[in-house]
């Protein structure tokens, strides 16, 4: 059986920081609608690759960082990312990690749930809702997923386990 390990110490954290930088890229109005949550996708990637070794604490930490950088309610993204990490580990263990159809289904379910939770929190706080355009990142997440998954594959290496 093969087990994946990070290519070097801190590789997972490095991808998280890169994802956080992508999240903070200033985009013009029409592109902003399609901006996927790169950190959530990276957490999904590591849940599939490292499986139960992926860390929920890291998800929580990245969530707090995103909360502070984006000015949302403290704990909102922490909640969302921990959910993403947990659900994708749980569901990822039940599927074939390399099957793309299953991956797309997983991305759709996990990112959809993540966005739904964020929407609930925003509605409770009485923040503006963007209408149907709110779900744009869900589609762009699916589109970008294969490329992102491939890009992040640099950061781990398979190792044979007896």
């Amino acid at each position, binding site marked *: 059986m093969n087990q994946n390990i990070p290519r070097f110490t801190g590789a997972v954290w490095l991808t998280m*920081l890169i994802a*956080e*930088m992508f999240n*903070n*890229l*200033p985009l*013009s*109005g029409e592109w*902003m609608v399609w901006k996927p949550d790169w950190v959530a996708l990276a957490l999904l990637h590591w849940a599939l690759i490292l499986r*139960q070794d992926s860390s*929920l*604490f890291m*998800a*929580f930490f990245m*969530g*707090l*960082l995103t*909360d*502070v*950088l*984006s*000015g*949302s*309610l*403290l*704990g*909102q993204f*922490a*909640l969302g990312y*921990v*959910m993403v990490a*947990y659900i994708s*580990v*749980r569901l990822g*263990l*039940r599927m074939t990690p390399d099957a793309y159809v299953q991956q797309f289904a997983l991305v759709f379910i996990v990112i959809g749930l993540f966005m739904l939770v964020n929407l609930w*929190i*925003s509605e409770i*706080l*009485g*923040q*503006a*809702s*963007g209408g149907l355009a709110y779900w744009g990142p869900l589609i762009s997440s699916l589109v970008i997923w294969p490329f992102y998954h491939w890009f992040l594959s640099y950061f781990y290496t398979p190792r044979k386990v007896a």
Partner: protein
Amino acid sequence: MRLIQSLEAAIYDVDHHATPGLFIRFVVLILIALTLMFVDHRSPSNTLPVRTLFSIIGYPLQLAVDAPFRAYNVTEGFFADQTRVSKQNAELEARLLEIKADYRNMKIIKQQNERLRSLLKISKRPDFSFTMAEILSASDYRGQSVVTINKGTRDGVFVKQVVLADGDKAQSQGGNIFGQVISVTPLSAQVILITDLQHAIPVRNLRTNKRALASGTGKPDVLELKSIVAESDVRDGDIFVSSGLDGLFPADFQVAEVVSNGVNYVPGDPFANIKARPLINFQNTREVLLLWRNAEPEVAPQPADEPSENTNNANPEAKTNSAQVAGAAQ
């Protein structure tokens, strides 16, 4: 039989729940997150240490994201067309001369104004000083309009400090109100824009002096003017300036302009429904001005009229003296 046994073994070997401790960690972290959200919603000041810690951690990230844009600006300036730069330089020098003349004139008027004010025993107009800051990153998370700037407590920035920016139109250039500081870390500060859904600023109509409240809508180019009675006279193109009634924003800085066809009346609604455009292009602004109120020479608090009137009456001699001293110092 053997086959079935080995198959069963294979099936049970793949234990879908073989993630010891994962569920417990999940529940604990979710509970922590929910508690944080609750506390942050109820009393944001309690979560300030966490926010400060994470903004310090995130500051290098924001710098890194900003670096390519900055580098592009620098190199673009470096390789820019020589003739264009020299032309621009000449234009700027001419403009500087004009402004110098204006400034000299303004200084005289200011002294005159101070003298007249002291004669009339009106408290002095507040004096301001400015520092420029650059916008590091902007987030437009669902109607929350917050930007991070590269000045913090090390530069004397404080919470509720007023932030100005250059206007987008020729006649409204100079300091227009941009927003206010909501949190500060040693190296950076977060500024809430006047277009944020939860922000409001008291304003007055420059033409009619009618007061109103300009509140944000979450959209970067729309402000709503509230509590204007339906009968009152508001026209397209009216400029609204800050009224200074909240004691936070200084008076007479431009805020918004009524858009064309922006005034609507709903039958039965005692208030007019007025849409205005902030006089700042928030998407293109990269530099902002931080504003400090200079310490005033008088001891009497500025916004309170009654006590300052009393002290004036009690000791008119000292007041005029101090005002004259202040005038002489300038």
